[in-house]
C-alpha cells in the first residue's frame, strides 16, 4: 500500500501540528461515532465519556504523530512476504471499514424507520442508498463528489448549530462549558423518586465515575478508540482521496477540523442537556393514554420497548403495549421505557427541542440529516477501503466499484443481523484498525528493516484475538459465558435462569420464540462476560498487546540471525 500521500498533497503546514490528518479523521467518522458517543453519555453517564475521550484522543494522535509510514508494503513490494503484508493490511482495513460502515448503516436505518415507520424498512433502504452513493463516488466527476461531502458537512453543522442554540437559549452560554444540566439532573432524579416515577435502582448518578465499568476497562477502551480511529481516518480517507481524487477540496481542511473539534467540545453538553430534558419530561408526567408525538413515533417505529413489549406494527400504540390503567395515575415510569438501537439520541433530541419551546414541526428533516451524514460517511469509507484498488489504480473503474460494493454489502449483513450495537461496532472497528496499524508503526520506528513475515503473523494473531473476544459474547453468548470463566463468579440464580432459557430455546417451536429467548440470554450475559477482567468492547487492547509483543520478539530474533 502506498503510504505517503502527504507528498501528493499541497501542505499548508510549516511546523507544528499535522492538521491534514486531523481533517481525515473528521471526514472518516460520519455519523456513527458522534451518535455512539452521545448515546453512551445519555445511557451510561460518566462511563460513557470513554467514546468522547477516545475520539478526542484520535484527533490528538492524528495531530501529533504525523504521516503514517510503515503501513503495509510499498506499492513496489519486492518479495512474496511484502506482497502478503500488503494484502493482509488491505483485507484488515476492509474489515475495519465494514464494521464502521455497518454502524453507519444502523444509524441510517434507525433514522429512516423513524420518519418512515414500517418494519425494518431502514435495513433495506439504507444499504441500497449507500451502494448508490458509493457508485456515484466511484464513477462521478470529482467536483460532484466534493459537493456531496460538503452537503453532508452542512447537514452536520446545521444539526450542531440547532442543538447549541437550543442549549444556550435554555441554560445560557455557560451551558457549553460547565454543563449545568448535569447538576440539574440530581434534582430531577429526586423528583422522579418522590413521585414514584422511577425505581431508585434504575437511576444512576450521572457524574459519578466508574459505576458501570472500572478504570482499567475505561482506559483500555479509550486507548483503542484513540489509536484505531486515528488510524482508520488517516488510512481510509487517504485511500479515498488518493484513488478517487475526488474529495479534492483540501482547502476545506481547516473549516472541517474546526467544525469537528467544536462539535467534540459541545457534544457532552448537548447530550447531557438532552438527557436532562428527557428526564424532566418523565418527571412532568407522560400519560400512557396520550404520549407526546415523539414517543408515539418511537413506539410506531419499534425503537422502544415499552412496558416490556415492542410494537409489532406501526398501528400499535403505547396504550396497547402498556394496557389501560397502567402505572401510578396512568403515568409512564422512567424504567417502563427502554430505548433500543440508537433511539436515545433521537428521543432525547426531540424531548430537548420540546422543552426549549421549539415546535417539532419537521422531525423528518432531523432524521433525513442523520441519514445523509451516515450514508455519505459509509460510502467514503467503502471507496477508501475498497480492497480491489491498487496503489496506482483509480476508483473510476469497475474493479474499484465492485470492491466498494463488496465492503458495503458485507457491512449491510452485519447491520441487518442486529447482533451488535452501534457503540460496540465502533469499538470493534477501532480495535481492528489499531491492532493492524500500531504494530507496523512500532516495527517501522524500532527496526529499520522489519520482517514482513513477522509483521503479517503478528497482526493476523492480534486481529483474530480482537475479533474473537469482541464478537464471542454476541455470536455464542452462553459458550462465551462459560469459557471466559464468568459463569463461575455469577450468582447461582443467574446460572439457573440461563439453563431455563436454554431449555426454552431448545424446545421452541417457532423462530419468534427462539429469538425472544435468545434476546433474554444476551441481556443477562452481556454485562457479565469479561475476558481477563476486560469487557468485550475493551478487549481490543489484548489483541493489540499480543501483536506488539509478537512483532517485537520476532523482529529481535530476525535481526540477530
Amino acid at each position, binding site marked *: 500500500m502506498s503510504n505517503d500521500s502527504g507528498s501528493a498533497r499541497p501542505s499548508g503546514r510549516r511546523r507544528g501540528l499535522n492538521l491534514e490528518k486531523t481533517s481525515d479523521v473528521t471526514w472518516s467518522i460520519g455519523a456513527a461515532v458522534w451518535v455512539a458517543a452521545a448515546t453512551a453519555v445519555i445511557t451510561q453517564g460518566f462511563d460513557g465519556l470513554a467514546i468522547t475521550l477516545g475520539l478526542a484522543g484520535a484527533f*490528538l494522535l492524528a495531530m501529533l504523530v504525523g504521516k503514517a509510514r510503515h503501513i503495509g508494503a510499498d506499492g513496489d513490494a519486492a518479495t512474496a512476504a511484502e506482497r502478503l503484508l500488503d494484502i493482509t493490511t488491505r483485507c484488515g482495513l476492509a474489515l475495519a471499514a465494514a464494521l464502521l460502515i455497518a454502524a453507519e448503516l444502523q444509524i441510517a436505518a434507525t433514522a429512516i424507520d423513524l420518519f418512515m415507520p414500517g418494519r425494518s424498512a431502514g435495513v433495506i433502504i439504507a444499504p441500497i442508498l449507500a451502494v448508490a452513493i458509493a457508485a456515484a463516488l466511484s464513477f462521478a466527476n470529482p467536483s460532484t463528489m466534493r459537493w456531496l461531502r460538503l452537503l453532508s458537512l452542512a447537514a452536520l453543522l446545521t444539526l450542531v448549530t440547532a442543538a447549541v442554540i437550543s442549549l444556550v437559549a435554555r441554560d445560557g452560554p455557560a451551558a457549553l462549558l460547565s454543563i449545568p444540566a448535569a447538576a440539574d439532573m440530581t434534582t430531577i432524579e429526586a423528583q422522579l423518586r418522590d413521585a414514584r416515577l422511577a425505581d431508585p435502582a434504575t437511576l444512576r448518578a450521572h457524574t459519578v465515575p466508574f459505576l458501570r465499568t472500572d478504570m482499567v476497562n475505561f*482506559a483500555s477502551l479509550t486507548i483503542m478508540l484513540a489509536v484505531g480511529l486515528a488510524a482508520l481516518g488517516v488510512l481510509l480517507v487517504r485511500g479515498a482521496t488518493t484513488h478517487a481524487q475526488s474529495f479534492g477540496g483540501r482547502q476545506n481542511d481547516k473549516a472541517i477540523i474546526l467544525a469537528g473539534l467544536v462539535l467534540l467540545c459541545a457534544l457532552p453538553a448537548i447530550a447531557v442537556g438532552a438527557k436532562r430534558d428527557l428526564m424532566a419530561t418523565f418527571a412532568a408526567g407522560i400519560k400512557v393514554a396520550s404520549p407526546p408525538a415523539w414517543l408515539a413515533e418511537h413506539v410506531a417505529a419499534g425503537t422502544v420497548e415499552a412496558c416490556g413489549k415492542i410494537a409489532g406494527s406501526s398501528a400499535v400504540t403505547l396504550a396497547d403495549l402498556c394496557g389501560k390503567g397502567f402505572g401510578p395515575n396512568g403515568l409512564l415510569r422512567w424504567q417502563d421505557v427502554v430505548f433500543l438501537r440508537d433511539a436515545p439520541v433521537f428521543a432525547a433530541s426531540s424531548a430537548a427541542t420540546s422543552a426549549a419551546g421549539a415546535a417539532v414541526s419537521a422531525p423528518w428533516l432531523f432524521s433525513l440529516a442523520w441519514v445523509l451524514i451516515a450514508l455519505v460517511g459509509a460510502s467514503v469509507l467503502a471507496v477508501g477501503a475498497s480492497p480491489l484498488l491498487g496503489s496506482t489504480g483509480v476508483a473510476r473503474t469497475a474493479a474499484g466499484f465492485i470492491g466498494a460494493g463488496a465492503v458495503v454489502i458485507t457491512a449491510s449483513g452485519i447491520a441487518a443481523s442486529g447482533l451488535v450495537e452501534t457503540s460496540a461496532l465502533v469499538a470493534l472497528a477501532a480495535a481492528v484498525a489499531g491492532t493492524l496499524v500500531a504494530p507496523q508503526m512500532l516495527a517501522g520506528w524500532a527496526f529499520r528493516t522489519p520482517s514482513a513475515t513477522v509483521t503479517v503473523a503478528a497482526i493476523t494473531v492480534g486481529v483474530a484475538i480482537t475479533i474473537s473476544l469482541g464478537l464471542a459474547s454476541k455470536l455464542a453468548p452462553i459458550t462465551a459465558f462459560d469459557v471466559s470463566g464468568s459463569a463461575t463468579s455469577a450468582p447461582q440464580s443467574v446460572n439457573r435462569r440461563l439453563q431455563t432459557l436454554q431449555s426454552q430455546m431448545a424446545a421452541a417451536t417457532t423462530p419468534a420464540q427462539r429469538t425472544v429467548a435468545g434476546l433474554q440470554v444476551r441481556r443477562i450475559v452481556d454485562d457479565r462476560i469479561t475476558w481477563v477482567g476486560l469487557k468485550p468492547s475493551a478487549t481490543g487492547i489484548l489483541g493489540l498487546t499480543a501483536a506488539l509483543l509478537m512483532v517485537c520478539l520476532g523482529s529481535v530474533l530476525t535481526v540477530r540471525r
Partner: protein
Amino acid sequence: MASSTGQPEPPQHLGRRRLRRALAAITGIGLIAGVPLLTPTLNALKIMGTPLGYVVVAHGIAIVCLLWAATSMWISRHEQ
C-alpha cells in the same frame, strides 16, 4: 524523507524526528488514559454546581485539541 522545506533530511535528524513523534504519541495516549483517573479527586470541587472532574473529562482534552489546532492554523497562516 524530505523535510517540510523540501530539503533532504540528515539521518540523525530523521532519528530525532521519529523519537519526537513516538514521545508525542505516548504522551497523547498517557494524557487521555490518565486524566479520567483523577476524576474522583477532582469531583470534590464543583464548577457552577457540576463536579469538576466530570467537566474536565468531558471538555478538557477536546478544548486542548481545539486550542492547539486553532493556534497551529494561526501560526501557519502568518508564516506563509
